């Protein structure tokens, strides 16, 4: 600990840079951003979001191999994220079984040189612009941030801790094994050595999480069984683990994966282009957070609605206007934020953001809005 402040690691799952950001992605990003910026007033907080860590997954390497095999030399800088996303949908529709040999050049390039395929590099640069527009802290979208453990080192640690089962020597896979805790065996590396996203996450988190008093895992609600396993793998390494599942945002009542496409009128790019000119930047940032955090909440029952988003943006304008007139009370912000922590160090974004929409006649503190929400 530094000066008595607790150390907190925020570790959300990353969005694969192969498609446009959808409302579900945006919700997770805004949720994490508010948690990060609010918690930073109370603790030493690290927001770990490394695309380098997750590039070795099959869905990313396979996509890159598909692009080069079937499209050759393309000027990806001329493509929009939607157009890259269309290529990704075609890749997933191909359903071609991949082998380690197919993706080996890409896997090696990621590990040894920090390689990023130009299609994904293009998407990440476009996302950086969205981040800027939305006032999202950039945790290093374009940076090379390799995980602390190599694949073999991670597997050795898991096996030694009684949490891994490595049967590659007989042509079997590697499993994450928390059966001691009643959780089912989960494959994390194929027999020919291809890691899934859990293996990638563990390469990063097993060495990193013990450096923090508290580790917060943020992820799609559908991944809850996997993250229960991650929690088990990290428990006992010296950190306290909190799981924060975030519900996705249905479109017209349906929760679909971005791999199937169908995102056209709802991408972050479209949202920003549609609303960006109507609202000033601060209202846009606050209104997006009000809608995606407080209005939609942690669940996933409510479908995306433009009318409610606009209502949140209008509410944001009112809140900002009222907040500007309130006098600043030095030192009050940490105490205000601490009320939304519950039994942990990190601030709960839902509770904090919802508090702005309460019936209280007191306007929100301007420094709360400027340092956490806009």
């Amino acid at each position: 600990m530094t000066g008595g402040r607790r150390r907190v690691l925020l570790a959300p799952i990353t969005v694969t840079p192969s498609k446009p950001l959808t409302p579900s992605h945006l919700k997770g990003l805004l949720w994490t951003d508010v948690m990060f910026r609010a918690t930073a007033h109370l603790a030493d907080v690290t927001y770990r979001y490394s695309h380098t860590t997750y590039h070795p997954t099959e869905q990313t390497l396979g996509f890159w191999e598909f692009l080069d095999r079937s499209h050759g030399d393309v000027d990806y800088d001329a493509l929009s994220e939607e157009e890259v996303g269309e290529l990704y949908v075609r890749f997933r529709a191909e359903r071609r079984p991949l082998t380690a040999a197919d993706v080996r050049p890409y896997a090696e390039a990621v590990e040894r040189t920090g390689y990023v395929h130009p299609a994904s590099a293009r998407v990440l640069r476009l996302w950086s612009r969205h981040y800027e527009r939305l006032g999202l802290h950039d945790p290093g979208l374009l940076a090379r941030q390799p995980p602390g453990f190599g694949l073999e080192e991670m597997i050795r640690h898991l096996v030694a801790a009684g949490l891994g089962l490595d049967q590659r020597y007989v042509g079997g896979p590697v499993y994450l094994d928390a059966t001691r805790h009643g959780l089912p065996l989960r494959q994390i590396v194929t027999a020919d050595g291809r890691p899934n996203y859990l293996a990638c996450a563990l390469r990063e988190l097993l060495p990193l999480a013990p450096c923090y008093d508290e580790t917060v895992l943020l992820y799609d609600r559908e991944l809850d069984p996997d993250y229960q396993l991650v929690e088990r793998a990290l428990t006992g390494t010296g950190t306290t683990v909190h799981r924060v599942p975030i519900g996705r945002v249905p479109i017209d009542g349906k929760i679909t994966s971005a791999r199937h496409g169908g995102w056209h009128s709802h991408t972050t790019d479209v949202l920003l282009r549609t609303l960006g000119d109507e609202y000033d930047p601060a209202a846009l940032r606050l209104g997006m957070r009000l809608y995606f955090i407080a209005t939609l909440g942690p669940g996933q029952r409510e479908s995306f609605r433009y009318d409610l988003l606009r209502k949140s943006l209008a509410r944001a304008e009112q809140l900002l206007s009222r907040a500007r007139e309130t006098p600043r009370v030095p030192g009050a912000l940490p105490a205000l934020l601490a009320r939304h922590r519950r039994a942990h160090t990190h601030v709960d974004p839902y509770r904090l953001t919802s508090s702005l929409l309460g019936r209280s006649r007191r306007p929100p503190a301007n420094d709360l809005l400027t340092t956490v929400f806009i």
Partner: protein
Amino acid sequence: MTLSPEMLLTVAADRLRTARPEMAARLDVSTPDALRDAKAAIASREVDGPADGAVVAVIGSFSLPRWVHETCRFALSVPADRAVPWRRSFTRTLFLAGRPDNLRERFAFDHIADDASSAWVGPAADRTTTALRRLLKTFSGARELSAWAPVAIAVSGPAASGAPSPPSRPHVHRDLYIATSGLTVSDMLVQVNHLLVEAVLDGLIRPADRLTLRAVPHLSGLAVPFAALRVDTDVHRPHELQAYAALTEET
């Protein structure tokens, strides 16, 4: 004793008749295809019925000599009343990947290897192993077998057993030949497991007997007397039979 298609068919048919003596007269086992159909017919008749004779074997880390040794120890521990339904289900055994040291507090195994590399439950009704099977995955050993230098093991008795002690006889030594060509580790587990446990149940392998494990690409051409032979559908020729493993007479 020389292997021939007729001999393989005889061995396979005898096994079917031994497991299901009441059906022996009705079964057509005149060709490999007829034999396979007869087995399939028996299996299909039991799809909806209670399967009460299956073993679940959990494999953590695998080495052939250790696994052969522990498989014999497990089979030696099976009480006679539980061996009967197991024989009737053709010593059905399900291999799962798992770490016995992680499971022993939640599940009562009937046998655990001394080094906890593997563990066994059963023979028991499928429903008694549902929770274990849901937690684990089918063992996957897709690597093809490679040959090994002959290795000898001494079979020790089970740690604790409800099985009656067999009548004493002098300890014997046998060779266990295993065909390696085209066989994966998973294939070998299935074939050698049947041979070993049935040899134990038949009294061919007893505590303190010694086995020498020998790899051969194929069993054809072996001119040694066999006490037991494991015969199943040929991996390359689905209408023919192949010998996968053999236990010799005393050597």
